[in-house]
């Protein structure tokens, strides 16, 4: 049994296509070149959205090279390609629907929302014990004096 499996394995290994070290090194050189290209493109003066598009395109080319050559999907089993492409497709779906939502949002009101009414201190109900003010002090400009201090004024 052991010898038959070893023979079958050796046979399969012999039939298995592999990437030569020269190809791996060439791929690395191309990847370094593309990194330089990403850097170069980022230094060109153009609108920021073009920069974003160029950076993503070059990154996609680099990822394809890494996946096909370093990760052996070029010669690998088809099922592994399906797994990786599916996960990438799900990433794109998530990205597309979220960005479609964020990109098409609009202001819900068709007029300016009126500012919050300013509460007049004189209109406050009298007889409240210190620190029991019904309107929080300093609400509009962040953490302000504590309600205890406000009650003393």
């Amino acid at each position, binding site marked *: 049994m*052991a010898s038959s*499996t*070893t023979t*079958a*394995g*050796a046979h*399969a*290994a012999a039939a*298995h296509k*592999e*990437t*030569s*070290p020269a190809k*791996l*090194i060439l*791929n*690395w050189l191309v*990847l*370094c070149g593309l*990194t330089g290209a*990403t*850097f170069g493109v*980022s230094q060109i003066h153009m609108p*920021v959205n073009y*920069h*974003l598009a160029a*950076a*993503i395109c*070059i*990154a996609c080319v*680099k*990822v394809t090279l*890494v*996946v096909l*050559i*370093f*990760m*052996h999907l070029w010669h*690998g*089993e088809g*099922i*592994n390609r399906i*797994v*990786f492409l*599916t*996960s*990438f497709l*799900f*990433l794109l779906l*998530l*990205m597309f629907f*979220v*960005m479609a939502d*964020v*990109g098409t949002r609009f202001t819900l009101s068709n007029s300016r929302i009126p500012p919050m009414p300013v509460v007049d201190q004189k209109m406050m109900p009298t007889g409240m014990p210190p620190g029991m003010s019904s309107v929080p002090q300093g609400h509009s400009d962040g953490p302000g004096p504590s309600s205890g201090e406000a009650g003393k004024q």
Partner: protein
Amino acid sequence: MTAEGWLEPPPLPHHYETIENHQAALRFGMWLFLGTEVLLFAGIFVGYFVFRTYFPESFEQAGRHLSLFLGTLNTFLLLTSSLTVALAHHNAEHGKNRNAFWLLMASVAMGAGFLCIKAIEYTEKFHEGALPGKFFSFSEITAPGGPVFYVVYFFSTGLHALHVIVGMSLLTWVATRCWRKEFSPTYYAPVENAGLYWHLVDLVWIFLYPLLYLV
């Protein structure tokens, strides 16, 4: 030890017909896991694009304050470590365990270099007060959304650095097995799978580098 100079492969689990069958299953399992990793990072990338849409000026300002030199150096380090891992896989597949060992150790060293550079960058950010959320006190970013950029920056690069640490541990583990000459043309799946994980770490950085440092 066989005549060729490597250890006998571990016994084949009874539910596999051949060793190649077993290796293909191990590879398939690893790819499924990598699929889940892609989805983990997908959430972070979507977060990046959403917040970038809300706060474009602060993302541009903050991006200019990251060290382009260190980011580019880290990119080259990771690309080169991916090459050495791919070469280690090739050597392990041909039973050249000692070559594979040294190539894997070179990859681990480059991973450590990457983390050191990242630590330098983080230290600089801590001194500047370029920090996430309520810890933000960096006066040079005036547009709204600076603290949000650093949430995205620290979370994405932090999770990536965690993956680098896990990847280095896996590579060290398979390197010690290479030193013991465990791999041969019929059994090299651990080197291949640890390598696949390392390449994924590289893939994530290929996207993070331009999005954070260049755009």
